[in-house]
């Protein structure tokens, strides 16, 4: 256990034995991670704006003309309890007639229909769309609304959901190739640094092997070094991203845009550091295998 801790400490110490190589690696890892972070911030801001501006969908529910008002009122009450509902506007047949009359600016007289309105009872429900599976969610809501007693038909605009879905898909599909590319670059940078360290320390490694050092004893400090370089590069990049975000967060936050640039979430930051450490470890391991 003590030897393990000793090797761990040695791995962290050893990366400072080649300060120039360390500086170059940290610069490369930080810059690549910074690029990834900026891209992530862009995706976050884009998603936030999409959801904020286009994330509402309306369902118009029409009842049968002969549906009893009592049943309609019961349905309205039940609809009020639906999740993600942001507003509910209801129209009795008479109220619907009034709205129609207003739409004609009083140029058409609809009073004669008052006693026996040809319009059905209706409800206009506005929902906030979920972040995931919008299409499936919309289908579920449609079925739920159609199941209310006396409901004749339900209308909504699936195109709006399609547009939102497409934007989200686009941001996600664009996200992964870019992130994979940047991860590959980080891996190559760290791997090559470890190869350089191996080359610089080949005499020492040879002597260690001659005197009976196990593979773990020789490799572990270098693998820990790779992970430490990934972590340090990630921390530097996050610091840089924080500074940039501080300067840019309100750059587009003015009328009519009102776009506030979103920073990375805590989970994303942790994920980024974990990924960098994994890449550092993995690329060191590969470099050692080849070396």
């Amino acid at each position, binding site marked *: 256990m*003590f*030897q393990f801790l000793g090797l761990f400490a040695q791995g962290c110490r050893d990366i400072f034995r080649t300060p120039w190589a360390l500086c170059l690696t940290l610069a490369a890892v930080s810059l690549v991670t910074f690029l990834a972070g900026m891209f992530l911030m862009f995706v976050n801001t884009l998603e936030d704006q999409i959801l904020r501006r286009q994330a509402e969908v309306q369902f118009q529910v029409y009842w049968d003309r002969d549906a009893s008002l009592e049943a309609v009122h019961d349905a309205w009450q039940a609809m009020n309890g639906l999740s993600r509902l942001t507003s509910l506007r209801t129209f009795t047949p008479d109220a619907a007639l009034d709205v129609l009359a207003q739409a004609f600016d009083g140029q058409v007289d609809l009073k004669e229909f008052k006693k026996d309105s040809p319009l059905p009872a209706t409800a206009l429900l506005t929902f906030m769309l979920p972040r995931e599976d919008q299409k499936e969610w919309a289908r579920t809501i449609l079925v739920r609304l159609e199941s209310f007693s006396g409901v004749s038909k339900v209308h909504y605009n699936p195109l709006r959901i399609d547009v939102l879905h497409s934007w989200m898909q686009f941001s996600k599909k664009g996200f992964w190739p870019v992130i994979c590319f940047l991860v590959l670059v980080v891996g190559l940078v760290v791997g090559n640094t470890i190869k350089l360290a191996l080359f610089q320390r080949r*005499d*020492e490694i*040879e*002597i*260690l*092997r*001659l*005197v*009976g*050092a*196990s*593979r773990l*004893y020789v490799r572990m400090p270098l693998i820990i070094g790779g992970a430490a370089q990934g972590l340090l590069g990630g921390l530097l990049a996050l610091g840089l991203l924080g500074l940039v975000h501080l300067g840019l967060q309100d750059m587009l936050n003015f009328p009519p845009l009102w776009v506030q640039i979103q920073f990375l979430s805590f989970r994303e930051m942790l994920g980024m550091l974990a990924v960098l450490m994994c890449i550092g470890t993995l690329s060191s391991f590969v470099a050692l295998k080849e070396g």
Partner: protein
Amino acid sequence: MIHVQSLSYSFGNHWALKDVSFSLAPGDFLFLVGPSGAGKTTLMRVLHGSLPVQRGRAEVAGVDLGKLKAGRLHYLRRQIGVVFQDFKVLAGRTVFDNVALPLYVQGMKKQVIQHRVRAVLRSLELDTKAQCPCQELSGGEQQRVAIARSVVIKPKIILADEPTGNLDHELGQRLMHVFHQFNKHGTTIVFATHNREILANTPHANILYLRDGATVVRENAPYG
């Protein structure tokens, strides 16, 4: 302690060892003698596990090298001290750190390391240089550091590949005396050299003459 039977080794089409056989008991001293390119270093490297057994059989400290897995090699090396012509010491580290290295890699306790290293440095008259970086030492002192590093583990076997090759005659003789001392305490020593003068002061040793990888002459002398 060491059994080699019909051992051959080739680098591509060139056979560096051809059908070499010998056997050493605990406490034996073997000189491998031959000109440069005779196969001495190749034989040493096979015995140390740095090169694989291609043909024949080699058993060192009870371990069949042909069957030894790479992951277990370090256990064998912890029983073997090695000394090279070019010293192979860590120039930037102190004498103490160099000598303690094999004990560190075995995970020994600090007190044990301190005790053992001090004792070995005293026996090789290096105790006053313990904290000196090796790059500040003379060639003879660096070779003594290499010997100290090889004996600090109390090895069953010492493989010395031309350890006096870079030293003057007098220093070479002094180092030979050190090897004799360890041999007297029961350590098996395989000593490669192309300098026949060294043989004169070790009358009890076995001698294996190699030329172009093959055994030319083998002389066995009674131990002691």
